[in-house]
């Protein structure tokens, strides 16, 4: 088994942090992808974040009332080794460069 960590995603509108309202999953839970995971509140609104991953929850970061910055660890899943291998082949820091290159293409239409 391997562990995958997910950070607090970019919530748009230039928001840099969010406050945890309530966790809807707990360590030890087996969750499905897109299952409601946590409620967070920003300065503009409250949002329910779905799980980005199927797997067993190992750790959650942030108590209710606590603040997490965008990009900081939010949740860690335990997944079978072969699944982690596929995800692990894409280094996290490479993703933004790829998006920039892809976004240039539609403008040629």
């Amino acid at each position, binding site marked *: 088994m391997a562990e995958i960590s997910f950070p607090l995603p970019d919530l748009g*509108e230039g928001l840099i942090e969010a406050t945890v309202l*309530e966790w809807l999953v707990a360590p030890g839970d087996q969750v499905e992808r897109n299952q*409601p995971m946590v*409620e967070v*509140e920003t300065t503009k*609104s409250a949002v*329910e974040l779905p799980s980005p991953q199927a797997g067993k929850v190992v750790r959650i970061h942030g108590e209710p009332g606590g603040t997490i910055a965008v990009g900081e660890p939010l949740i860690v899943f335990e997944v079978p080794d072969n699944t982690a291998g596929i995800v692990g082949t894409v280094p996290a820091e490479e993703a933004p460069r790829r998006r920039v290159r892809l976004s240039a293409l539609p403008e040629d239409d």
Partner: protein
Amino acid sequence: METHGKHSASRPAHTVEGTDPQLHVGTYEPAVDAGLRPVLLLHGFASSAKLNWSDTGWLSALNSAGRRVITVDLPGHGGSAAPDDLDSYTPSRIRADILQLVTDLGARPLHAGDAASGLDIIGYSLGSRLAWEFGATQGELVHRIVLGGAGGLDPLAAFDLPAAQQYLADGTAIADDSTAALLQMAQLLPSNNLFSMLSLIEAAKLEPFDPAEAVPRMPMLLIAGDKDERAATMGDLAALSPATEQLLLPGRNHTNAVTSRAFKHAAIEFLAQ
């Protein structure tokens, strides 16, 4: 005659009193349909169907429960048009537009023994006020209503419009806390059209909320955070009808009650009865 496909994005607009309301409407089908009537969601002031219902997990929660969902952005909000004329923003006009769109989407009058007939409504804040009035006037259509963040007072009617305009002109501080908070909400999102927000307030002043004037007869569930100051008078609203239940969400306020799982569970269970 043209048929109006419910999935068609280019569905010909149905005019109301000769005008196309240009409201942004969404329909969301469940993977497994419970066979129950559609649920109409009405968002709050300076919000949108996306902010109030999608980002907060309501659409997926209702679809997972087998419910078909209809959303609409209020005029000047979300993806709806922001007309110049004041009449487009009056609560009575908005209710007429809503009646037309749910009818176009297949909602039909309640029929005893048919669980797919009629319409359920979940409103939040201003959406609750509209749901209350809609339920009171459409007793043959509306089956049950959930009112979130609702009170017996009308914060839009009490809004100090001259003070807001003065503030926007030269930054003079607004004395009334509720007015200042509402204006801040209206200015918070770049997608909000401030002219439309103020038009809606002006139009709401023409038709202030008077819940005792017409009381819905169908069962209603009133839900709010126990720290929600705008819903402090929720009990007054509940007292007007014998068919109401109330639920307070511990630790939640007017902004963050919307994502509450307890809120969703209670609403879904109540509307399934």
